[in-house]
């Protein structure tokens, strides 16, 4: 354990030192991510100023829903940047180097590289949205609720991590999965900004069973808010985000282990 902690510390120190070579750039990049993501919120904010509510959700409830997306993404990207960029790692042959070191492949991918710009940009936006909304949506916070909130965040991180891990495993067969990630992940994430009850059944199906963003924010948010539109879905869905995360990640991990055998390496 001490050895692992020491190494993770070394990796972080190395990454941090590299950014400090470009101090101004680091700050600007995080700010750019923060502002880019904020525009979406601003659009919703002004829309709801006009319409008051969306399918029973008022502005603060919407912001609470949104905060889960940004918080989980901010944490997720600290750990899974290496999986997000895995296609280029395989194509450039850098994955060979990981295989030549006496450490787990996944461990190295996770800890060698972190997109701190995205983490800080998304994460701070998530924190701001949470602070703005959490006191205004009628939740009376108890230690038990707070604990479930933390587990839900962890579950949301794992769900998205599992999708990244699954797509990264496909790289061993396809070499490039960038557009699949764009289609399946980033496009679906746009839907997740809204309560899924407003969408057509087909999109709801996608959001629950294909790319389960509903478990990242809608269902856990409903656990706290209990808006009436939850009645359209099985009640159990509100309680299982941590389990969905754990199971999905486990399956993605097993698929990763299996796919690793098919690694072909790249020519010189």
């Amino acid at each position, binding site marked *: 354990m001490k050895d692992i902690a*020491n190494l993770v510390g070394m990796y972080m120190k190395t990454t941090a030192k590299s950014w400090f*070579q470009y101090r101004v750039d680091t700050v600007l990049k995080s700010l750019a991510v923060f502002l880019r993501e904020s525009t979406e919120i601003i659009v919703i904010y002004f829309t709801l100023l006009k319409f008051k509510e969306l399918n029973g959700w008022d502005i603060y409830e919407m912001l609470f829903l949104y905060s889960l997306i940004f918080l989980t993404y901010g944490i997720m990207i600290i750990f899974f940047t290496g999986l997000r960029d895995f296609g280029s790692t395989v194509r450039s042959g*850098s994955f060979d180097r990981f295989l*030549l*070191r*006496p450490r787990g492949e996944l461990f190295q991918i996770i800890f060698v590289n972190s997109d701190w710009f995205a983490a800080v940009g998304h994460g701070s936006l998530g924190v701001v949205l949470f602070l703005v909304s959490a006191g205004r949506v009628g939740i009376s916070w108890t230690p038990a609720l707070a604990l479930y909130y933390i587990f839900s965040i962890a579950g949301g991180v794992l769900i998205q991590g599992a999708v990244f891990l699954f797509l990264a495993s496909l790289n061993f067969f396809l070499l490039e999965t960038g557009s699949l990630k764009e289609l399946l992940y980033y496009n679906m994430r746009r839907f997740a900004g809204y309560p899924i009850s407003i969408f057509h059944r087909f999109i709801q199906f996608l959001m629950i069973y294909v790319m389960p963003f509903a478990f990242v924010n809608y269902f856990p948010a409903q656990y706290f808010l209990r808006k009436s539109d939850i009645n359209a879905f099985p009640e159990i869905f509100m309680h299982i985000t941590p389990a969905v995360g754990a199971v999905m990640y486990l399956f993605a991990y097993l698929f990763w282990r299996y796919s690793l055998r098919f690694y*072909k390496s790249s020519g*010189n």
Partner: protein
Amino acid sequence: MSFIEVSKVSKTFRVSKRQAGVTGMIANLFVPKYEKRKAVKDVSFSINEGEMVGFIGPNGAGKSTTIKMLSGILYPDSGEIKVDGYIPYKQRKSYVSRIGVVFGQKSQLQWDLPVIDSFELLKAIYRVPDKVYRNNLERFTEMLDMNAFINQPVRQLSLGQRMRADIAAALIHSPEIVFFDEPTIGVDVVGKERIRNFIRELNRQDNVTMIFTTHDMQDIEKTCDRLIIIDEGSKVYDGSLQGIRKKYSTLRQLDVEFADDVEIQPINDVKIVNMEQNKKRFVFESREVRINELMNTLLNKYNVKDISISEPEIESIIRKIYNRD
């Protein structure tokens, strides 16, 4: 049982076959066609501890694939590899801490950071004990003359300096086997010589087993005792450098400088090449032409100023093997 045992190893890749034209492109999208390409066919060899072996072959011959299987990156389809009791691709994590790999074309150093930071990071990755680390660092800094740039960011180094730092990085955990994949590529003559000297010295002092792949025959001639040639996935030669001369080279060449510009009449079985000014080169098979007869003819007929016999360079022999002529 040798230190490294490779027996009947084969590896096939499935490569997608592109069809020509727009229709082909669309067809490819829906029904991709693949063809199997055998990268390595039934290759066997064994290497003893402390040996220095050059691994050569034209591009795409399968030498990189073989090296990748030996270093645990790729699984062979059939056959078996054993290195000091380990099966590299099955016991990857415990195996790789005993090997070091230098890719001449891909640095493992942290681009933006001083060289020493990469070494520190590798120390943590390989769990190198403090004492071993300090010893190695001191020794390699001295041997590779890295003092001047060890605190400079890697991006500011010259190619030769970067290569030296990369070699030190691959050795910081005292590996027992080191793979060098084109370790002198792009480095100038002086730099190359320095790297070769270091490699020889390290082999002599620590009895490290070394395997090279390179296109630079000078690398092989100056460092290796043994040569394995791979072509089209198969082993075509395995033996000493002298052996390859004996086996493949029955070719001899005679360089003659004449006193004046003369026209040489054709001689049976001898190829005549014009060199600069009054020099000519006579190339022939030692089986077909007796050298004393040829020399006699030349000395009697023409006014000869200087004469010298030489064996062709190893490079031209290798080229001959690749072309199979």
